[in-house]
């Protein structure tokens, strides 16, 4: 009887050890996941630039809004500030932010993101989700019909990133993938 209990304990310890070992990411895999999350932020940067551009056809902008929205977790918010009142930051639902961006009252809009990097590295949470913060700098320029620059600012923004390992069946195969979702995008600084 004692031996049976001993075997059960050994089995449980073995299974837990094996699960923990599989759960630990090697530095190479962690680096791939880090890059994937950064890539999603770069995708967002591209989408924002396309949505904001007055040269983008309406149908294309709407398609890109759908893609951009898919990058975010439900109910995420994006902060908007102005150089005229830097401390007054308004937060919009992701969809509303993009629709507002598409309709900005300028003849030409240029949006550029740079210095995209981790402010805090992806850290594993008790539920298995990896959470980190990526900082970006956004340069916004708005021109009038005469091509004059009538507004510009630079904002530093923090984007929370959530990465979780998931599985799905495709063509009878079980595919393990990393689901990267962006959370709130908070304004940290606004300057000219």
């Amino acid at each position, binding site marked *: 009887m004692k031996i049976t209990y001993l075997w059960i304990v050994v089995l449980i310890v073995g299974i837990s050890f094996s699960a923990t070992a599989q759960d630990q990411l*090697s530095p*190479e*895999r962690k*680096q*791939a*996941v880090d*890059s*994937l999350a950064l890539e999603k932020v770069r*995708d967002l940067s*591209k*989408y924002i630039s*396309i949505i904001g551009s007055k040269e*983008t*056809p309406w149908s*294309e902008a709407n*398609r*890109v809004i759908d*893609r951009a929205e898919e990058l975010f977790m439900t109910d995420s918010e994006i902060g908007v500030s102005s150089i005229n009142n830097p401390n007054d930051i308004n937060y919009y639902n992701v969809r509303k932010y993009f629709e507002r961006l598409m309709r900005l009252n300028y003849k030409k809009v240029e949006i550029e993101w740079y210095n995209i990097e981790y402010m805090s590295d992806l850290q594993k949470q008790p539920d298995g989700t990896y959470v980190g913060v990526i900082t970006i700098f956004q340069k916004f320029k708005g021109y009038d019909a005469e091509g004059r620059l009538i507004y510009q600012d630079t904002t530093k923004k923090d984007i929370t990133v959530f990465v979780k390992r*998931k599985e*799905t069946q*495709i*063509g009878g195969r079980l*595919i*393990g*993938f*990393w*689901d*990267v979702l962006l959370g709130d995008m908070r304004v940290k600084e606004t300057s000219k």
Partner: protein
Amino acid sequence: MSIMVKNASRITMLVLATIIILGSATSCRSKKKLAREKAAAEYATKVEQAKNDLTAMLNGSTNWSLDEQDVRLNSIKSYNIDDPEVIDLISKVAAKISMERAEAERLAEEESLKREEAERKMKESPKHQEIDDQLNSISTSTTIDAANKKIMLSMDQFASPDVPVLIIISQYGGINDYDRPTTISKFLNYLKDKKQYKYTVESVKRDGLGKITELELIKK
């Protein structure tokens, strides 16, 4: 007088014979002893040499191949040395050789699989190169209209706009890590938006009509 001389001569002969017999017996005994001592010394040397060789094989400090180690081990086994240390070393070395042989076989198998996989990829690469070129061409289109036309043409090769596209982001220890799966329609538009194609086609699945039903890419 003559009798006395005869007797003395007989006695002398007897004494001589006794001395010879005793001498030869003693010499025989000492030869056997020497032989025993020699055999014991040879056995001790053999045991010592066996211990040295077995320890070296166990520590991996020889430059013998696995086959050479096997030959030496079998030769030591054939001595039937009755020494607990040697017996223990023999069993340890036998286990080590068998483990190393299994590992060598596993590595050879792995190497052969890698070679086969590389050959398969070499054979498939011209087919995939065409798809890579098409996807790259969408990403380098100069206008939205040009990109849309290429997307429409490319879509013809796929069984439906919802054909799954799997993107491998890393491969380590036999594990593929993927990005969130997408569809071909979304992926082609993504290339148009990003103006960048930094993947290579890893595998393609087709239906009976030759249309692509699954596309697997790997991030460069």
